[in-house]
C-alpha cells in the first residue's frame, strides 16, 4: 500500500514540480542574457491564469484541435507515474516500461501535429512538417540509446533499470558515456530546445513547437504548456536517474526518501541550469543541419553498442 | 561383285555429281532444267544398275518411273508453267554467293558427305559404299542451291535435286522399300511439284516476278 502511495506521490511530484523546472531554466537563460527574468514560480502563475481564461477557437478546427491538449496532458502525466523519481522503483512500473513512456510521448506529439494541421494556417503546417522530421530522425537515436541502457542494466523495465543503476558502481561501463552524449542530444530534441527549436520565439523561420500550438489559448494552452513542462522533467529525471544515480533511495523510509528527493532536486536543477546555459551559448541551427546533429547522436549510440558487446 | 560393275557404279556416281554441279554453276532456268533432266536420266541408269546388281525386279520399275516422271513429266510441267507466266525469270541474276564460290562450297559439301557417311556401317556393300556419299552430296548441294538462290524457280530446282538425292539414297541403302510406300513417295513428290507450279503461277500473277524478295513480307523485324 505504501508502495502505491509513494508511486502516486512520485508521479504527482513530477507533475507539480515541472513548471518550477521550466521556471529555473527560464530564469537562468534570462540571467545569462543579462536580464532579470520573471520569477521562478512564474510558470505556475501562467498556468493558473490561463486556466481561468476564455478560449478563442479557430472556426476551421474540429474536435481534434479541442481534444489535443487533453490527450497531451493525459499521456504525459500518465507517463510520469512510470518514472522512478527518488525511489529506485515505481509500483506502476509493472504495468509499463520505458518503451511505453516513449510511446506515450509519441502519442502526445502525434496529436499535437494533427491539431496544428487542423486549423488550416500555414504556421501549423510548418511546425508540423518540421516536427515530423525531428521526431522521425530522433526515433532511431532514442531507440539505440535505450538499447544500450537496457542491455547494460538488464531491461527496459524502469524499476529494474534504476535499481540496477543505483547498485552499480560509478560508470563502470564505457558505453554509457556514449549513451549519455546521445541522450543529451535527445533531450534537447525531444523537448524542443536549442539548437533544435527555440521555445521562446515566435518567428516563423525558427519556430517548430510554438508554430504548432499557435492557435491555442486559455485552458488548452495551459494544458499544453504544462504537459510540455512535464515532458521536460521526465526526460531530465531519466537522464539523472540513469547516468548519475547517487542518492536515490532504495527503500521506503522517510529519511532515505528525503535524501533521495533532495539529491534528485539538486541534480535536476543543476542539469536544467546547465542546459539553459548551453542553450544561451549557441544559436538555433538551420533546419537541414539538424540531421547532422542527430547523426552524431546515432553514431555515438552505435559506438556505445559496439563497446557494450566488445568489452 | 564384279569389278566392272563396281567401276560402272563409280563412274555413274561421278557423273551424277557432275550433273549436280552443273546445276550449281549455271544461271539460266532452261539450263538447270536440262541439267536436271540429264541428272535424272543418269539416276535412272544407276537405279537400273542397282537393280541388275541386286536382282530385285521392283527396282526396274522404279528406274522406269524415274525416267518417265523425272526426265519427262516434271520438266514438261515446269516448262509449261514458265511459258504461261510470260515474265522475266530466265536467269538467276543475283545469288547470295557468287557462282565460283558456290562451286567451291559444293565441293566442300561433297567432302563433308564423304566424311559424315564414314560412320555408317556398310557391311561391305559396294553399292552403298560408292553411292551413299554421292546421294548425300546431292542432297546437301540441293539444299545449298535452295539457300543460295533468289528466284523461286531455282528453289524448285533445288528441291528437285534434293529429291533425286533422296531417291538415290533410298535405292542405294534399301533397294527400294515396299512398293506402296515407293508409289506413295512418288505421288507425293509429283503432287508437290504440281502444287508448287500452281503457286509459281499465282506468284507470277500476283507479283509479276519470281524473285524471292517479293515474298519477304511476313517477318518480325
Amino acid at each position, binding site marked *: 500500500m505504501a508502495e502505491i502511495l509513494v508511486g502516486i506521490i512520485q508521479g504527482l511530484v513530477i507533475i507539480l514540480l515541472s513548471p518550477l523546472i521550466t521556471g529555473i531554466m527560464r530564469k537562468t537563460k534570462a540571467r545569462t542574457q543579462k536580464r532579470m527574468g520573471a520569477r521562478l514560480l512564474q510558470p505556475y502563475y501562467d498556468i493558473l491564469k490561463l486556466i481561468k481564461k476564455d478560449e478563442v477557437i479557430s472556426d476551421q478546427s474540429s474536435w481534434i484541435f479541442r481534444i489535443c491538449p487533453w490527450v497531451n496532458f493525459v499521456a504525459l502525466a500518465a507517463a510520469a507515474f512510470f518514472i522512478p523519481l527518488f525511489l529506485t522503483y515505481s509500483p506502476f512500473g509493472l504495468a509499463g516500461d520505458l518503451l511505453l513512456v516513449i510511446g506515450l510521448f509519441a502519442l502526445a506529439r502525434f496529436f499535437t501535429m494533427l491539431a496544428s494541421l487542423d486549423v488550416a494556417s500555414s504556421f501549423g503546417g510548418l511546425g508540423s512538417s518540421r516536427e515530423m522530421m525531428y521526431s522521425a530522425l530522433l526515433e532511431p537515436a532514442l531507440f539505440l540509446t535505450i538499447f544500450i541502457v537496457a542491455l547494460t542494466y538488464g531491461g527496459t523495465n524502469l524499476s529494474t533499470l534504476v535499481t540496477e543503476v543505483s547498485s552499480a558502481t560509478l560508470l563502470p561501463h564505457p558505453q554509457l558515456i556514449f549513451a549519455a552524449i546521445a541522450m543529451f542530444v535527445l533531450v534537447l530534441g525531444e523537448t524542443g530546445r536549442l539548437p533544435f527549436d527555440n521555445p521562446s520565439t515566435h518567428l516563423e523561420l525558427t519556430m517548430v513547437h510554438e508554430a504548432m500550438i499557435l492557435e491555442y489559448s486559455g485552458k488548452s494552452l495551459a494544458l499544453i504548456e504544462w504537459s510540455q513542462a512535464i515532458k521536460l522533467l521526465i526526460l531530465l529525471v531519466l537522464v539523472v536517474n540513469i547516468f548519475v544515480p547517487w542518492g536515490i533511495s532504495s527503500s521506503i523510509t522517510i529519511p532515505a526518501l528525503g535524501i533521495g528527493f533532495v539529491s534528485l532536486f539538486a541534480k535536476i536543477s543543476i542539469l536544467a541550469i546547465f542546459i539553459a546555459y548551453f542553450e544561451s551559448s549557441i544559436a538555433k541551427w538551420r533546419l537541414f543541419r539538424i540531421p547532422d546533429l542527430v547523426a552524431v547522436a546515432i553514431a555515438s549510440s552505435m559506438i556505445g553498442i559496439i563497446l557494450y558487446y566488445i568489452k | 561383285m564384279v569389278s566392272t560393275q563396281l567401276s560402272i557404279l563409280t563412274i555413274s556416281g561421278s557423273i551424277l555429281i557432275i550433273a549436280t554441279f552443273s546445276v550449281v554453276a549455271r544461271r539460266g532456268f532452261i539450263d538447270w532444267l536440262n541439267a536436271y533432266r540429264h541428272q535424272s536420266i543418269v539416276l535412272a541408269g544407276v537405279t537400273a544398275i542397282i537393280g541388275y546388281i541386286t536382282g530385285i525386279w521392283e527396282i526396274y520399275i522404279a528406274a522406269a518411273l524415274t525416267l518417265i516422271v523425272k526426265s519427262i513429266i516434271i520438266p514438261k510441267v515446269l516448262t509449261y508453267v514458265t511459258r504461261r507466266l510470260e515474265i522475266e525469270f530466265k536467269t538467276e541474276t543475283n545469288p547470295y554467293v557468287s557462282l565460283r564460290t558456290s562451286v567451291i562450297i559444293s565441293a566442300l559439301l561433297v567432302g563433308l558427305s564423304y566424311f559424315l557417311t564414314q560412320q555408317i556401317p556398310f557391311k561391305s556393300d559396294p553399292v552403298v559404299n560408292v553411292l551413299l556419299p554421292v546421294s548425300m552430296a546431292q542432297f546437301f548441294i540441293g539444299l545449298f542451291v535452295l539457300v543460295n538462290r533468289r528466284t523461286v524457280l531455282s528453289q524448285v530446282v533445288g528441291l528437285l535435286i534434293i529429291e533425286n538425292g533422296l531417291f538415290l539414297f533410298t535405292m542405294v541403302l534399301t533397294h527400294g522399300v*515396299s512398293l506402296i*510406300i515407293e508409289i506413295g513417295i512418288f505421288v507425293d513428290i509429283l503432287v508437290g511439284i504440281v502444287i508448287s507450279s500452281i503457286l509459281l503461277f499465282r506468284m507470277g500473277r500476283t507479283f509479276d516476278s519470281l524473285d524471292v524478295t517479293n515474298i519477304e513480307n511476313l517477318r518480325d523485324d
Partner: protein
Amino acid sequence: MDSVFSNLTILLLFLTPVASTGLVTLFRKKRIIGVITICSALLILVQVFVIVSRIISEKTITAFGNMFYIDSLSTIILLSISIVGFVSALYSKNYMGRQYDHGTVDDKHLVRYYQGFNVFLLTMLVIPTANSMGIMWVALEATTLVSVLLIMLYYKENAIEAAWKYLIIATVGLSFALIGTVFFYYANINAGSADDAMNWTSMVHNSKLFNPNLIKIAFIFILVGYGTKAGLAPMHTWLPDAHSEAPTPVSAVLSGVLLNCAFYVIIRFHIISSNAIGPEFSNQLLIIFAVISVGIAAASLYFQKDMKRMLAFSSVEHMGLISLGIGFGGLLGVYGALLQIINHAIAKPLMFFASGTISQKYETKAMSKIKGIIKIMPVTGVLFLIGGLALVGMPPFNIFLSEFFILSSGFQSGQFLATSLVILFLIVTFAVFLRHLIKMIFGNPVVPMKKDDMGKLAIIPMMILGALVLILGVFVPQQLQTLVQNASTIINHGGFA
C-alpha cells in the same frame, strides 16, 4: 487381334472423311457441305471414342495384316485429331459463312475448302494409325500438300508467301525425315528383319540389335526433319507465317493437331532409338531443341503485331514444352508431355477460334487496333481470356497441369539448368503474351461498335473447348488417365505396354 472388327474399325475411320469429301464434291451447295463436314467430323469423333474404349481394354488394335497398328500413344493423337477436327468443322460453318457473306470467298472456294478440310483430316488420321513408318511419312507429306492448298485458298499475297515458305521448308524438312526413316529401315534390315522392316512394331522388336552409330545419325535426321514439321526451333520459321495466314479453322487444326502428328512420329523414333542406344542421346537432343524453341518463342512474342502470328509462336513454345517433357523422360515427364499434347490441342484451337471471330468483328488482325473485346463481345472475350491464360500456364486451366508435370520431371531427372532456363522463358512468355492479350481484351474500343458475339455457331465450339480447358485443369477422367498412363509406359518401356 487382327479381327474383321478391327479391319472394319479402321476402314470406317478412313471411309468417313473420304465419303464426306465425295459428298461435298457431289452437292457443292454452300448450306449442305458445311453440315456434311460437321457430321463426318462428329462421326469420326464417335469412332475415335469407340477406339479409345477398345484401347483401354485391349491395349492395341492391329488391322489389315500389320499395316495398321493402334496403341495408347496413337490413340492420344487420334483423340486430339478428332476433337479438334470436330470443333473446327463446327466453327468453319460460321466462319466461312461470314467470309462468304463478306465476299472474301465464293462458292468455288467454299467447295475447295471443305474438300481440302476433309482430305486434311483423312491424311492426319492415317499418321497415328499407320504401322509403317513409310506410310507415316507419306501421310505427313500429304498433310503438307493439302494444308498448303488450304492456306492459299484465297490467293492473297501473304497467303501465297506463307504457302510457299511452308511448302519448301516442310518439304526439305520431310526429306531429311525420309533419310532418317530409311536409315532406320536399313538398320532393321541389317538386324535381320524381312519384308515388314518398315513397320514400327518390327523396328521396336529388333531395336536392340541396331547399330548405334547408324541410329545416332538416323535420329538426328528424324529430329531435324520431323522437327521442322513439328515446329521446333530453329526449324520453326515457316510456322508463324503459315499458321497466321491460313483460314482460322485450318490454323486451329495446323497448330492444334498437325504439329502433334509430326511430333508423334518423333516420339515413335525416340522409342526405337532409346531401345537401341539408350535414352540419353535422344533425350539430350530433345531437351536442347526444346529449350531453344521455348526461348526463341518467348523472345519473339514480344514484338508481335498480328494476333494469329502471336498464337503461332505460342505453338512453337508448346511444342518445345512437349519435347521437353519427352526429353526429361521418366513417368512424370512423359505423362506431362502427353497430357500437354492433348491440352495444347484443346487450348490452341480455342484461341484461334476466338481470334478468328474477333478479327472478323474488328476487321483486322493487328493487335494495336483491337481494344475492349470484353465490352464488344463479352462471351468471346471471356473465352479468349480463358484460352490465353491456359496457354501461358495459369492454373486452374489444363496446361498448368501438364507443365507442372513436365517441369517436375525436369527437376527429378536432374536437368536443373534446362528446367530453370525454361521456367525463366515461361515467365517471359507469361508477361509478354498476357501483355498483348490484356491490352486487347480490356480497355475501350478504338471505334465504337455494336455489342455482338457473332452468332451461336461461333460460340459453341469455343464453349466446348473452354469447358474442356477448365475441367481438365482440375480433373482428369479415369479413362484418360489410364490411356495416358499406358502411353507413357509404352514410351518408357521400349514400345510395348
